[in-house]
C-alpha cells in the first residue's frame, strides 16, 4: 500500500465493493464505451443522452440523465487515469467547470470467472461533500418516485 491511512478522510470517504459475475476484461470493457455505459449507468428508470464521449486519460463524458419524474441531471465525468483492465480514476461533476466535482477510484480485481470492483470515493472538503449530498438526494428522490410506481404496479398485478 502506498497510501498511509489518513484518520481525517474516514468520515468523508465511501468505499463500495461489489462482485460482478463476469471476467475482468468484459467488466472493464463495460466502462470504456458509451454504447455499454448507456445500458447500465443510469439508475433504474433513468435514460441518458450523451453530448460528448472520449474514453482516454484527460477525456470526458458529457451527458444528461433523465429521471423518471422528468427531471434532467446534467452530468460530467472526466477520466484521470486509465489502466486497462485494472484501474480507472475519474472525476464526477455537473459540468466541466464544476468546482464541486469529486473523485472516485475504481479497481477491478481478477477472480477468474468473476470480478471484484472496489470504488473508493473521497470528498475532499465539506463543501464538496455537501454538493454530493444535494445531488444524490435529488437522484434518490427520482428513485423513490420509481419505487412507488413499481410498488403500485406490483400491487395492480395481484398475487401470482
Amino acid at each position: 500500500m502506498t497510501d498511509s491511512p489518513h484518520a481525517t478522510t474516514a468520515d468523508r470517504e465511501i468505499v463500495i465493493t461489489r462482485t460482478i459475475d463476469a471476467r475482468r476484461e468484459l467488466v472493464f470493457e463495460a466502462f470504456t464505451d458509451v454504447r455499454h455505459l448507456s445500458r447500465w449507468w443510469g439508475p433504474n428508470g433513468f435514460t441518458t443522452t450523451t453530448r460528448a464521449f472520449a474514453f482516454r486519460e484527460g477525456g470526458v463524458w458529457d451527458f444528461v440523465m433523465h429521471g423518471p419524474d422528468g427531471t434532467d441531471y446534467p452530468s460530467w465525468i472526466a477520466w484521470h487515469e486509465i489502466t486497462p483492465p485494472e484501474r480507472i480514476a475519474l472525476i464526477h461533476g455537473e459540468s466541466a467547470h464544476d468546482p464541486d466535482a469529486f473523485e472516485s477510484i475504481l479497481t477491478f480485481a481478477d477472480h477468474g470467472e468473476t470480478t471484484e470492483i472496489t470504488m473508493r470515493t473521497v470528498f475532499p472538503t465539506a463543501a464538496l461533500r455537501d454538493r454530493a449530498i444535494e445531488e444524490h438526494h435529488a437522484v434518490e428522490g427520482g428513485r423513490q418516485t420509481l419505487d412507488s410506481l413499481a410498488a403500485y404496479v406490483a400491487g395492480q398485478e395481484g398475487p401470482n
Partner: protein
Amino acid sequence: MARAATTSDAFNAIAEPQRRDILDVLRAGDRAVLELVGELGIAQPSVSKHLKVLREVHLVHVRDAGRRRIYGLDARGLQPVHEWAGGFEELWNERFDSLNAYMQELKRGAPR
C-alpha cells in the same frame, strides 16, 4: 446555490467533534446540561453553545423538567444524514446491479 451556515445544516453541525460526542451520549438517553458537562468533561458554556447549534438544526430537542432543561436526540435532523450516506451507496449498488445484469446479457451474446 449558497452554502448553508453551520447553524442551519446538520452536516456542518456534526462536523464538530464535541457536538458528535454530545450526540453519542444522548444516544444512551436524555440528559440535563450538567450531566453532559460531567460525562464529557467539557465546560458548561461550551456544552450550552453546542446544544444551541444542535437544536437549531433539529438534532436535539429540549424539554423543561422543573428547573432543569433535559436534552434528547431529535430524529428530524439526523434523517438527511442517513439518507445521504445510504443514498450514495444505494445508487451505486443499484448501478452495479445493472452492470451485473448487462454482463449476463453480453455473455449470452444477446443481440443488440
